[in-house]
């Protein structure tokens, strides 16, 4: 049968050449790319995001100092203002903190951990939320009721409180025996506090999609329910997930910084934007504004840029959501 099929002549339809051009070319031809190109604000936001993420990823290479290397720290260098201010040291462009760490290098390393935690947390939330939403929407019945009830309870509480609580419990459970697990506890607590939105959106869309003809066709040819869910329904419900994911990324960055600022996130020795601001806050009254200002500006600009990208993506992918 299959050999018969292979012997059939390939009919070259007019659409075939376009399809052959590849994914990259098609992307540059899309509405998405057009709406990206036509908004200057979005291009700037994307450029800033890329710049910050790129600099953070390359921090081990481009950072002038290594804030993790305790031997390189010198208390004589502590509390120095930025290089262009009187009393500044040209070795430390943005000044130093209370332990003599170079602010610029610490921001680079800190942004790297902040972004890593946020991205992993959002991926975790998407994983949990999308699977639960698909299952709830596709199977319906008692499974749906249970999952959605849990989501309702979860929705009663603001994400930051849930994250704080999960973090508190984990910190208590592993008191003194954490040894670097703070990173993963943060990922877990932020991820677990964000999944509901995905579950609700995906469930709603799955309810619509599962009655469409392509799903019926797939069922007719005897595909398993899992295969239909993940191979056919999933790709069709992903675009709002992408939008929520981008907006959530900004929220996750804020949440991570907030938890670290409150002293329940990363330990002070581990640079992150939140812990830097927490440390700097203590020295605000002694006039050392640079310890708070530079990590604060980095955080605000990063979140603003990601938010702008999220807004644009929402409008570009689905004008109805506006």
């Amino acid at each position, binding site marked *: 049968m299959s050999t018969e099929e292979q012997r059939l002549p390939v009919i070259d339809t007019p659409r075939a050449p376009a399809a052959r051009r590849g994914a990259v070319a098609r992307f540059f031809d899309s509405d998405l790319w057009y709406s990206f190109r036509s908004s200057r604000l979005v291009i700037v936001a994307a450029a800033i995001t890329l710049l910050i993420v790129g600099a953070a990823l390359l921090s081990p290479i481009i950072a002038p100092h290594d804030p993790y290397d305790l031997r390189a720290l010198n208390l004589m260098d502590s509390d120095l203002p930025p290089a262009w201010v009187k009393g500044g040291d040209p070795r430390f462009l943005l000044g130093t903190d209370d332990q003599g760490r170079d602010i610029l290098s610490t921001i680079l390393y800190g942004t790297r951990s902040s972004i890593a935690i946020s991205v992993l947390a959002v991926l975790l939330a998407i994983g949990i939320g999308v699977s639960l939403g698909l299952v709830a929407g596709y199977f319906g019945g008692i499974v749906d009721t249970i999952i959605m009830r849990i989501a309702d309870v979860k929705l009663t509480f603001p994400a*930051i409180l849930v994250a704080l609580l999960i973090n508190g419990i984990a910190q208590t*459970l592993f008191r003194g025996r954490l040894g670097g697990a703070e990173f993963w506890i943060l990922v877990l607590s932020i991820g677990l506090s964000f999944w509901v939105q995905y579950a609700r959106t995906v469930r709603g869309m799955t309810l619509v999609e599962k009655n469409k003809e392509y799903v019926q066709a797939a069922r007719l040819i005897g595909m398993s329910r899992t295969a239909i869910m993940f191979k056919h329904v999933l790709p069709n419900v992903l675009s709002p997930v992408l939008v929520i994911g981008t907006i959530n990324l900004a929220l996750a960055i804020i949440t991570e910084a907030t938890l670290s600022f409150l002293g329940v996130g990363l330990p002070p020795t581990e640079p992150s934007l939140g812990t830097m601001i927490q440390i700097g806050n203590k020295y605000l009254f002694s006039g050392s504004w640079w310890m708070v200002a530079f990590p604060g500006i980095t955080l605000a600009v990063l979140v603003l840029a990601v938010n702008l990208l999220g807004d644009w993506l929402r409008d570009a992918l689905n004008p109805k959501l506006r």
Partner: protein
Amino acid sequence: MLAFTIRRLFEAAIVMLTVALLAFVLFRFVGDPINQMVGQDTSIAEREELRERLGLNDPVLVQFGRFIWNAARYDFGISYQVKRPVTSLIAERFPATFELAITAALFAILLGIPMGVYTGIHRDSWLSKLFLSVSLVGISLPTFLIGILLIYVFAVQLGVLPSFGRGEVVKIGGWTTGLLTASGLKALILPAITLGLFQMTLVTRLVRSQMLEVLRTDYIKFARARGLSDRAVNFGHALKNTLIPVITIIGLQLGAIIAFAIITETVFQWPGMGLMFIQAVQNADIPVMSAYLLLVAFLFVLINLIVDLLYVWIDPRVRIYGREA
């Protein structure tokens, strides 16, 4: 309406039971309560005796029942850290958080609604664009950064407002208030703005989008055709119809304000429940953590319930749907 109320009450009870179970598990199994209470040199026999006396050897279900019974009578045990009843700690801290949250909510509503109406009516004026840009910045700046910024400008640089504490407070019965003294009011300004700013941007954006939607409807066109003044159309017809979702969201946001108060209280060292909770988390003070969890859950569930019922009461369409369901 009655059936709807009963169903909502039932759901609220289930939520509370779930949270109570969580708080109990936290209370009973996260860390050993005995280890937290006694010193290093307590003998094993003494520990066993304490364990027996506190009923920690009873079946878990009995313990859970006792936990709920105690919580229902407003008894959450004794704080590990300060060795005092948790309820008296909460009674001390609650007024501070309450006054802060209410002031912040008023700030958000009294500024947010006019800004939303203005940006909704005058879509393309430069002032609207300014409002919207400010609101985008308000959403993008984390609460604690706003607080630090305000402290730096008004406390460090200008030195006009205090940066921590509640100022002088007056005691009325069991309630301490900072609203009656000049220093108390001054101390309230920065924390209330910090806490309310995010909610204000939310209200602005919500009222704006609702106004845009309502202004497009036929009855607004009809009102204009009747020759009513702009003022009557915008405020009498349009604003009135935008308020239902706005009330819902503001009600629900009261819960968020209480949660975000944790951050604001930490930044300003405001002696409220949020600061108490953060200190409890840092010190593994489980009774305080579980009591806070239960109280906040109770507040959230109560607010949700009231908002749901209000909604039905205000909007007849929901009432009909509620009867059918």
